[in-house]
């Protein structure tokens, strides 16, 4: 690892972006390959549905393809893509509210889990925990869920999250702290039975 290596890495990314901006579909394909897993996971964590995550991931990259020329050098590609995905997720929430009057109705994967039929075997404990986390996550307020997912599950820095959400870092810290407290309260009954 040298200084040149990091420069090369940055230059190659800039080069791919520049190629994609000039309409090179192959270059855009590379961008998709590099980032679609991150975006898919993000949308899944926010909405809790694989089909929706699949659809919105494609929408995100289609939006990015349309607006790639508006991407400026200083904006990191990942946070830019995440910003587009976030807008689509929020749009999905809003359409759910309009259709069903409740934002969490679409999250049937999360809400279908009531905590009674937990998997019995020890080897499934982690899966079980993930299910419980998914349910709790679905009950968090959207804004807090967004910060919680980006920080705790996708390990972005406060600075990157601030770029995506447009919120100031102190507000992010407070929201994350509250989200953690809420999550702990929701997970407590399960954690106690697990002990």
């Amino acid at each position, binding site marked *: *690892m*040298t*200084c040149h*290596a*990091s420069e090369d*890495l*940055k230059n190659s990314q800039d080069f791919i972006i520049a190629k994609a901006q000039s309409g090179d*579909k192959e270059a*855009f*394909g590379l961008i*998709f*390959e590099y980032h*679609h*897993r991150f975006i*898919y*996971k993000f949308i*899944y*964590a926010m909405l809790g549905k*694989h089909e929706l*995550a*699949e659809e919105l*991931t*494609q929408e995100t*990259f*289609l939006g990015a*393809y349309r607006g790639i020329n508006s991407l400026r050098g200083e904006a990191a590609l990942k946070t830019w893509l995440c910003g587009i995905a976030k807008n689509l997720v929020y749009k999905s929430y809003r359409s759910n509210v309009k259709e069903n009057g409740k934002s969490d109705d679409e999250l049937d994967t999360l809400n279908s889990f009531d905590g009674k039929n937990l998997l019995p075997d020890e080897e499934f404990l*982690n899966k079980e*925990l*993930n299910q419980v*986390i*998914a349910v709790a996550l679905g009950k968090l307020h959207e804004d807090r869920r967004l910060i*919680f997912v980006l*920080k*705790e*599950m*996708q*390990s972005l*820095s*406060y*600075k990157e999250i601030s770029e995506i959400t447009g919120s100031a870092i102190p507000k992010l*810290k*407070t929201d*994350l*702290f509250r989200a*953690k407290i809420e*999550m*702990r309260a929701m*997970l407590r009954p399960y954690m106690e039975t697990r002990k």
Partner: protein
Amino acid sequence: MSCEKYAQLINDLVEGELDLQTAGRVDLHIFACESCEAELEMLRSEKENYAHFLFEIEPPSDLSTQFQAKLESFDQAKSVLPEVSYGFYDRFSNFFGIRFFQPILAGAAVLFVLGFGYFWLRNLEKDSEQSKVLPSINSANKAFEGKSEIIFPPETAKAKIVSPKKITKVSITKSEPIIAQQKANEASVKKPFVRKNKLQNLKIETAINLNEFQDFQIKTATQLEKVEMLFRSFRNARFIEEREEYDIAYEKQQAERLLESNIRLRRQSENYGTILENEMLGKVEPYLLEISNLDANPTQEEVLEIKQRIKNQNLIAGLQGF
């Protein structure tokens, strides 16, 4: 400070988002407070659970193919759309997005006109002041009629405040307006030289700054390379089974050394505004601090806990890619 006030700080400590000084303060409190120590442990284990949540979630393997097909159909649909013939204004406005930015452009135009007007008026004012000053110079020279080689201070722009008392050498006879004109000419000839010197100085300064910046980049790269090596070495630290302890004396010593240079480089990166370097140096710093704060022979739990967090943050891979 009460424990309640430390709660948020402990959370930031777990997130690795505290500066060195505050982290030290929080560490001290945790050391003395059992409930806060328990809180820290709880937050760490919760973070580990949450971090695992998305590990097994994977997009379908054909998502890439699906997207390529969607992209193709999108491009085809775009090319099938009837071409509308645009006039010059339409094309121009579409190109610059003037329609969208119309209010902003109008505002900018007003500001430009106002600014231009202000500077024009200011220059006009200066000109009139200069024309007022000239007769006063003439009259001052008149007072020394019959004498020549009047020495003004170097900046003739300040000629207007030069009083006859300040004029030092007086000799040969010459007519007064010519002398004033000569001095003004001399000044106008000297000025570009001053500018040229300033430019040269600026160029030298820039060259020095560039050298410093290159030096900083090399040092940062070396630092991060060493940190990567340290983390790898820490990951593979020797476990002494008889005593159930790790032997990390070497890693601890290295971490202490690297921590100092890390802080210095991180501050420099803040000054230079290099975001990537700053971020990476900031990320590794809490771990350097923790490793340097460990005993030479720490318990298995202490070491595993740090190892796990380094793994969760993908730090070694991040450093390798940097």
